[in-house]
């Protein structure tokens, strides 16, 4: 296979600076990823978990390498050995902590300060490692956020939001996204993320209205169901099962609306130099995908998981595009030194840390 299409792009740099719309293309497939997943899982089990670090690198290289923009794929460069060291420290530390905490409950009191002061560090290190290890067209991404910024955005603003009964919650989310996205970089080019707080208030206002609408609709459907079957049937398995299903679907719809809106708000306002990203995910579309994924995963006892993951990523990327103004080849490398310590990234992996995007 040759890549003639890319040749033409680079041979003749376009003199015009009219914006071009460049989609993210995803060439991965569930059947391909299933084989990668299951083979690496067996290798991980045989090696008592040691291979999981290599498996992680292969998984991320597969997803990065399957995603391309303007004819070129992304790549992932982490060293499995660095990831293994990070994993061993995380798992060992966690196990010791849990066992010690069960024997001496006083130790559990340390959790709160550990979370308050440790979480910003984990988030900062994780973003730095992940972006540094990601590349496109030979240039690495980067992250310039510092500990102070993470502590302010994730802890102080979160406390402020909590103590004002949620009134400052949209501000907290704006700070969080500004920290995460505004500190990102591609090569020597810093990303820009400049969204007014009122846009966040508008988003949350609409979200709360939509969520209430969905829940009221679910309640009406349930009411009608009980009315038609008679109130005596409330306790019967088919009726209570249907009621649970209605609320499960309603919950997923709310989750879909939230996640889609949040992603649009995050990536849809991101700029990198003269280029910007557009994100147009739809809440109900995402909810339908989450619902079918969940059903198929349960029906297949988990076997569908690789297909589900591929479907989700393909859907998200299909609704994102880059509006490029000028030549994408103009980016240059940054002089930042390689940061290869994976501990923070592994801690965030292990505890499934929610960055807020």
């Amino acid at each position, binding site marked *: *296979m*040759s*890549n003639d299409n*890319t*040749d033409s792009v*680079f*041979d003749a740099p376009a003199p015009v600076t009219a914006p071009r719309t460049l989609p993210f293309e995803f*060439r991965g497939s569930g059947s*391909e990823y*299933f*084989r*990668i*997943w*299951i*083979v*690496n*899982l*067996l*290798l*991980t*089990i045989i090696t008592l978990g040691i291979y*999981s670090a290599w*498996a*992680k690198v*292969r*998984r991320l*290289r*597969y997803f*990065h*390498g*399957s995603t391309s923009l303007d004819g*070129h*794929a992304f*790549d992932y460069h982490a060293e499995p050995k660095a990831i293994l060291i990070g994993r061993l420290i995380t798992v060992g530390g966690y196990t010791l902590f*849990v066992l010690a905490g*069960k*024997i*001496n*409950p006083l130790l559990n009191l340390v959790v709160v300060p550990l979370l308050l002061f440790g979480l910003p560090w984990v988030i900062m290190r994780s973003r730095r490692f992940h972006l540094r290890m990601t590349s*496109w*067209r*030979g*240039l690495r991404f980067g992250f310039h956020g510092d500990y102070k910024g993470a502590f302010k955005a994730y802890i102080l603003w979160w406390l402020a939001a909590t103590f004002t009964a949620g009134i400052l919650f949209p501000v907290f989310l704006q700070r969080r996204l500004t920290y995460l996205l505004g500190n990102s970089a591609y090569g020597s080019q810093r990303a820009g993320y400049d969204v007014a707080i009122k846009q966040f208030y508008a988003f949350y206002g609409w979200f709360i209205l939509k969520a209430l609408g969905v829940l009221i609709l679910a309640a009406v459907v349930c009411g009608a169901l009980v009315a038609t079957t008679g109130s005596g049937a409330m306790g019967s398995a088919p009726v209570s099962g249907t009621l649970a299903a209605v609320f499960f679907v309603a919950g997923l719809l709310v989750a879909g609306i939230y996640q889609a809106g949040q992603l649009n708000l995050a990536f849809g306002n991101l700029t990198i130099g003269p280029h910007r990203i557009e994100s147009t995910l739809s809440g109900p579309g995402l909810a339908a995908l989450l619902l079918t*994924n*969940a059903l198929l*995963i*349960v029906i297949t006892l*988990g076997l569908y*998981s*690789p297909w*589900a*993951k591929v479907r989700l990523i393909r859907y998200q990327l299909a609704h994102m595009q880059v509006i490029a103004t000028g*030549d*994408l*080849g*103009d*980016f*240059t*490398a940054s002089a930042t030194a390689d940061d290869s310590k994976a501990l923070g990234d592994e801690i965030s992996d292990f505890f*499934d840390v929610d960055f807020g995007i």
Partner: protein
Amino acid sequence: MSILASDARVIDGTYFDGRSARGVAARLVACANGRCDLQMDDQQRCIDMASVKVSARIAHIPRRIDFSGGGHFETLDNDGIDALQIQHAQHPGLVQWFERQWKVALFSLLSVVLVAVLFFTFGVPWLAQRVADVMPVSADAHLGKGVLEVLDGRLLKPSALSAERQLQLQQRFDEVIRNQRGAGNWQFELRNAPIVGANAFALPGGTVVMTDQLVALAQHDEELMAVMAHEVGHVRRRHGLRQLLQSLGVSAMAMAVFGDVTSLSTFTGVAPALLQAGYSRDMEREADAYSRVWMGQHGIAQRRFDDLMCRLAASHGSTSGSKYDYFASHPAISERARCAQ
């Protein structure tokens, strides 16, 4: 020489210098003596294949060759790179080949399922037992601490039995724990539990709680002693601590298997819960066996246990062999006791 020339493959791709995002169309041509030619529009570089780093092949994704002086060559021609590596006595690797074979994937799937079943059935309980063995007995007491206080506020009320009857039952309990090693932390508690009903449970460390409702259901004190022995069995076998250790093992395994591919925590949460029910059934069996051995040693007829169990089952309205057995935390009554029809 002619053989080499006909073998020489041309690999089309893009060259990036690593200093800018600008790519240059390039082609890699194999030549003799472990070297390759990297040909670009206006220049040609001779590459020593021993000095470059070729990325591992994964499915269809682009392959990259990193040059020692910076810069890299990127191509979709995976087969071409494989051929080049073989020509230079480098192996493309086995894992990438495994990952592309459906036969290997199927074999892996069956192996993973087999290992998981063996691990959950034998491995987790065995490991939990071994870890519990090296943990101090004081760990059990810490687990049980505070549990009764929490229950007392909500589900349990002070016993309504007469002081005389309570003293009698305390003496029965003292009989059961006589000669039990690890004595000292044993404690017997009676509670009125209208919501819970007839029941008894043990807290790790040695507190045995029995409800007034169970006392009322019994027709002979030996029946209650059989239940006390069952609860003592839970404590002696350190079921509370083992349950905790097992749940840690199950969550770790579930996270290892599905953590990478799904964020559906519901799924990874439900499977451990079902497995927990299975482990808890095993522990009930162990406690039943403990009680029956104790009864045998102390001259109490085995039917005392059966009688109370059957009455308990009848009062809870559960029929033997219910279809939900697999999900229940206790074994079916038909398995635990012989009931008169």
